[in-house]
């Protein structure tokens, strides 16, 4: 695990220009989205969420715009993830092929994008379902965590192994059996970093400011780092022997 973290830090440093660029793009689009739909979404300390209760109040034009905006944000996130993953892959594989690099990005993008769309739709539908039936939101949180846990490494499988979604799902099962601990570590690291930062900033700043700071930190540091770390962890699949954490 230490090796993966070190490797991730190294890649993070090397690709930081790109991360900044992508982060800014995402930040701008997210900012527009927030400003445009401030009544329908809210910023939590860990991300941006839809206010399901307000959805019924939205008109068609607004809905289309919002949907389009979400698709753009997800596309940007997908692109960021793919670029960082390919960068990690090339770093770990120690070989750089510009043509292959681009081809890898372009060929992986639709598949990964598809996944995030599906994931967004699942989240959206389940949220509506829970809202309508007024079920315990804690259960919904657990379900979201389980789904994200299961599908966490699918985008990496698609990018690194250059396979389609179906094959990625098949590979996922094997991968989980071998390295089931890694997604837990991955999730735990993300959670711990966020909680620590929230606690630190919470002591100094009011909650609204903390939300914005955390959004920025997540966009520029935590999320890119976790993406790189995930790719690194996934890369252990190709190791000669399973590395001990």
């Amino acid at each position, binding site marked *: 695990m230490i090796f993966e973290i070190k490797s991730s830090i190294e890649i993070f440093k090397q690709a930081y220009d790109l991360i900044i660029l992508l982060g800014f793009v995402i930040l701008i689009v997210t900012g527009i989205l927030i400003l445009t739909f401030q009544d329908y979404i809210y910023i939590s300390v860990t991300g941006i969420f839809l206010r399901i209760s307000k959805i019924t109040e939205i008109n068609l034009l607004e809905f289309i715009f919002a949907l389009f905006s979400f698709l753009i944000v997800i596309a940007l996130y997908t692109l960021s993830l793919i670029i960082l993953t390919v960068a990690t892959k090339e770093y*770990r594989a120690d070989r750089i092929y510009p043509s292959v690099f681009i081809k890898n990005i372009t060929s992986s993008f639709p598949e990964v994008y598809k996944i995030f769309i599906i994931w967004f739709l699942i989240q959206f539908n389940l949220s509506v379902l829970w809202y309508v039936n007024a079920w315990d939101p804690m259960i919904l949180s657990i379900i979201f965590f389980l789904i994200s846990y299961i599908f966490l490494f699918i985008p990496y499988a698609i990018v690194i192994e250059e396979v389609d979604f179906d094959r990625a799902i098949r590979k996922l099962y094997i991968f989980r059996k071998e390295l089931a601990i890694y997604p837990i570590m991955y999730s735990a690291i993300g959670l711990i970093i966020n909680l620590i930062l929230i606690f630190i900033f919470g002591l100094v700043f009011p909650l609204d400011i903390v939300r914005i700071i955390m959004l920025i930190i997540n966009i520029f540091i935590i999320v890119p780092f976790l993406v790189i770390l995930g790719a690194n962890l996934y890369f252990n699949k190709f190791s000669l022997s399973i590395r001990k954490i």
Partner: protein
Amino acid sequence: MIQKLILQNWMSHRDTQISFRHGKILIHGKNGSGKTSIVEGIVFALFGEVKTSYRGINKQNRRNFIRDGEKSAKVEIEFSVDGKNFRIVRNLYRDKPSRSALYYNSNLISENDDEILKHITRVLNIDERLFGNVFYGAQDNIYQLINMPPKELKLNIDRVLGIEEIQDRIDKITKIINRIKDQIKQTEIDLDGYRTKQKELERLKSGYQTTLSRIEELNSQFRSLQNDYESMTKQKETIEQKYNTYIQYRDKKIATETKIDRLNQDIKKLQQIISNTQLEDPEVLEEKRLQLEKEIEQFRLYTDQSMKLNDLQNQLNQKYDSVFRNREDLYRTLQERNLELDTLRKELEQLNRSKPSNLTFIIALILAMGALGIGIFVINLALLPAIVFGIAALYLHIKYNEQKSRWSNELERVNNDTKRIEAEISSIRNELNVLEQELEKLKNDKNSVSEQLKDIMSKIPSDYGKELERRRDQISRALGNIESYKKDQKRLLELRQELENFVKNLESIDQTLKSLEINDKIYREWSKRYVELQEAIKRTKSEINLLTNQSKEFQKSIEILERDIEDMKRKIERVEILRALQKELEEIKNRISDLQTKNRQVYIQNINLGMGLFWNSLYAGVVYNDPKIAVDKSDGYELKISIGDNEVSADRLSGGEKTIYALSLRLAILNLITRRLRVIILDEPTHNLDDSSIDNLVDNINRLSLDHIDQFIIITHDDRLKNNVMWNQVIQVFREKSKDGSVNYSKVLL
């Protein structure tokens, strides 16, 4: 990319020229048409040998591959790497060494085999072995990597990846480290005595210092003693002179004292003698003496007479004894003569009895006479006994005469002896009578003398002589006493005079002795001190010598120990260096080992990733996923593939799948190790494949992307491959006979 190949008299090819295109290339032909020779030509042209081929072409046997009936062969290849064009020409000769040449952009680079190989290896970043294992899947050898045992697979892959060389280095470093460890261990054993030696050195140094200070002390003592000794030596002569004088005077004194003592004693004795002496009146004494002398004279007279009588008596006794003895002798002789006479008489009687007889002569004579008569008158034969009896009678007569003569002589002798003895006896008897008379007379004389002697003896009282003697002695002593008294008196005076002299002398000696101021005690003490001083000097000197020797020994031992310790220090330094070296080497080894592990991880990750990528692009099915190299229990490599939830060995794949697997592996390795010569050659990949597998292979070749490779060359006799794959180039190889039909050679149609 391989551009052109020329084969002249190479195996079955007489004159073949092939221009290769980019993409998928098929070399098709029937068995024995010369397809594999083309690939072997490519490998041979590049590396000068084809060890991976089943023919095993090497530098020694390569001339055997010249076409039958031809003296030489030529293999030429043109290829490009990163836009640079190379050409290699290899000429083989049956009767002379082969020649090779490497050209770069038409310029000759080298004509030396080894140099060409080095250039090619550097340019392509591969060697023949690697080429054979990765680029070229020889006939029946496509699945070689899949079928390898884990250890061998690991070794081969490590070798291909260059990791084996690192392992070699690690092993060598490990050996060196072990040797260093051994050396350190050995040296540490040698250094066990270091502390002991250091302690010993300290002890020796302290001992040396003590010895030096002791020598210094002794030297000062010696000097002081020497001074004393010199001073005493100077005094010695005077002292000894004095002492000798003293001795002389002392002896004199002793002698004088002795003399005085003796004189005193003598005086005392004399005084005593004088005082004890009782003197008689000399006149009385004279009278006594005269009276005594008279008596003595008388006594002497009697004594002389008695002595004469005694002598006479003795003479008579002797004579009587002699006569007596003569008489006794005569008696004995008489007795003997009588015995002799008796014997003679007996002898005479015997002789008389033994008178010789002549009877036998007479009988013999009668017989002789009778026989003679008979012989003469009766029978002649009787003459013979008559002669015999006659001779016998003669003989007997002679014997009788002899005996008679002897008897007569004997008788005469006995008679004479008897007469002589009888006369002797008579004479002896006469003598005896005379002697008896003489004896009688002597007896009477003896008696008379005895009477006289008794008479005289009665006149002399017993011990009278002694009495006279005693009285004479008494008188003599009394006279002597008087005489000696006078002498003693005189002597006493002399002695007293002498004593006075000696006493005076003694006083003088005492004065001298006092003036000498020395005596035995003083001299003995002085001498004793002198001798002690000498001995002390000697002792000190010997002690100094001993200590000097000891200090030299100490020095030597210290030097030896210091050398030893210096050696040991050097050894310790060496051990430290060795330890540092060992540590460094271990660090290097660990670093290299880490590097090796890291390299292996990176390489295997890449190969696994590449295999997955190639497998995904080549494999049309959905059953198998994720081909990968895994580590087995024996730490070897195992080729695996996932099927559903399980990971299985690549052995269980079908022939076509194996081909794809092997191809994926080769491509993955190729992708990893070189991007320069991006060529894959598979010789008869359909060998042992079933129809469905061949169909799969066809599909996969059709699906094969040319992103990663420039040329994908398949050699086969299979028409399905030829007909169903979209080939960029098909090279048809077949056998053709020469015009006269005598020679059979390969020909190529492009």
